[in-house]
């Protein structure tokens, strides 16, 4: 039994369903934080190419971006069915070199699958295979996150 455990910083009563009174000062089990880096390819003196991550101080169309989402279970309970949903900004386009197994949506989050399994309906009613540029949302699902466990999920996108 988990009685009296408090999650969440503050509660909005109107949003609560069957909320116990003690939810007032709960702490959220999961903490997430994200950042974005510019992926720069630099050529070293010996001719080898290396990628560097720069901050987003200067970002122009065509730049490759690395979106990083960090998560941490700060509670003492295991977190189950962790689902992290990341809508793609309309100003960026999903890169083609992302993990093909990534779960994505090309219809605003209604249907989810690997990109290769999705199709897009053209205006004339015909369908075609979905392209990286069609991606509107990304989602990661983790079955179990142990207390104190941290992790990071990432993807690449280009500035339109």
């Amino acid at each position, binding site marked *: *039994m988990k009685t009296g455990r408090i999650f*969440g910083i*503050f*509660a909005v009563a109107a949003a609560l369903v069957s909320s116990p009174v*003690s939810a007032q000062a*709960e702490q*959220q089990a999961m903490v997430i934080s*994200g950042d974005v880096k510019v992926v720069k390819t630099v050529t070293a003196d010996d001719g080898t190419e290396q990628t560097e991550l720069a901050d987003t101080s200067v970002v122009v169309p065509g730049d490759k971006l690395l979106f990083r989402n960090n998560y941490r279970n700060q509670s003492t309970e295991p977190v189950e069915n*962790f689902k992290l949903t990341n809508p793609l900004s309309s100003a960026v386009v999903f890169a083609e070199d992302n993990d093909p197994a990534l779960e994505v949506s090309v219809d605003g989050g209604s249907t989810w699958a690997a990109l290769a399994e999705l199709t897009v309906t053209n205006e004339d009613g015909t369908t075609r295979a979905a392209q990286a540029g069609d991606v509107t949302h990304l989602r990661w699902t983790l079955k179990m996150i142990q207390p104190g466990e941290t992790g990071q999920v990432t993807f690449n996108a280009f500035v339109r």
Partner: protein
Amino acid sequence: MKRTKQMLGAVSATALIALSVSPAYAAGTTAGDPIANTVTVDYQVGGFNQTAVQDTDTFTVDRKVDVTVTESGDIGRTAVSPNQTEAVLQFDIQNLSNDVVDLDLSTALAAGNDFTPTNIQIWQDNGDGVFDSATDTLVTYLDEMAEDEIRTVFVTADIPVGANTGDVADITLTADAHAGGTAASLGAELTDTAGANTAGVDTVLADGAGDTDAANAGDFSDTDGFVVTAAAVTVSKTSVIISDPVNGTTNPKAIPGAVVEYCIAVSNGTGAATATGVTVTDNLPVDLEIDDVFGVFIDGTVDGTGACQADGVDNANSNFVDNAPGTQDQVTGTLSDIAADVTRTLYFRATIN
């Protein structure tokens, strides 16, 4: 078991602003637009749904300056004639920046030109793609070029009369990006934002290297040129004795009273421009009298030896002046246009006094 439901304030709630919809321009996301990345997590603890957590990271897109200048219209050097005025070169200029820019235009003569075009001017097309000094606008810069906008400009020049066939002269057109935003005024030249990132929109020069400019310098250039194709007209005049009063047409001699046919052949050289308005004028010696019954024939051909063949036409634009004996008779005629490698003739007969 207890169900817990709660809302967590977003880490940076103020960043949760509505994104402006980015048009699918090649130039890309407009400078100054924010890119916000918002993630949401849902999860369960002890089998119960927990409230979604959000996190947002926002940054601003900076100004990327890119411009191209491309020869258009007549690709390759444009054929011109000596003494031609307002010979035209055409260029398409595109603003590939993600911001509105003014483009300062300048021309430069390429090195090694065979001749020097003069009176070089730049015109902005009125949209019909055809140069017309009456409807196109003389410009020194392109004002308020929108993202991805393409404009056509014409560079005109006068060709010196002394230019010869095959002579070439190239002109390089350079477009240099200046700040847009104020109509009818050339903004300040755009330069890379030096040093550390600023809070506002920084400028990154990201143009390619054109014919005479460096990459990432905010400008682009392309070269087009003129090649002179003058007409190369040569004239030969030959004569054949047709008859004399003693021998008739059998082995006639050039004695007084003999009839002589004069053949004036005008040829245009290989690769030359078509010669137009070719007028042949021949003043006969005083001891020759024009055969005004035979008349003057034009636009005939020559045989393999260069002699006139009797295939000309007695054309109304041919003329002769039959003066009294002792005064020169005159023959004139205007031939049809003579293309390269073509010979046209004018022939007439005269009597030896």
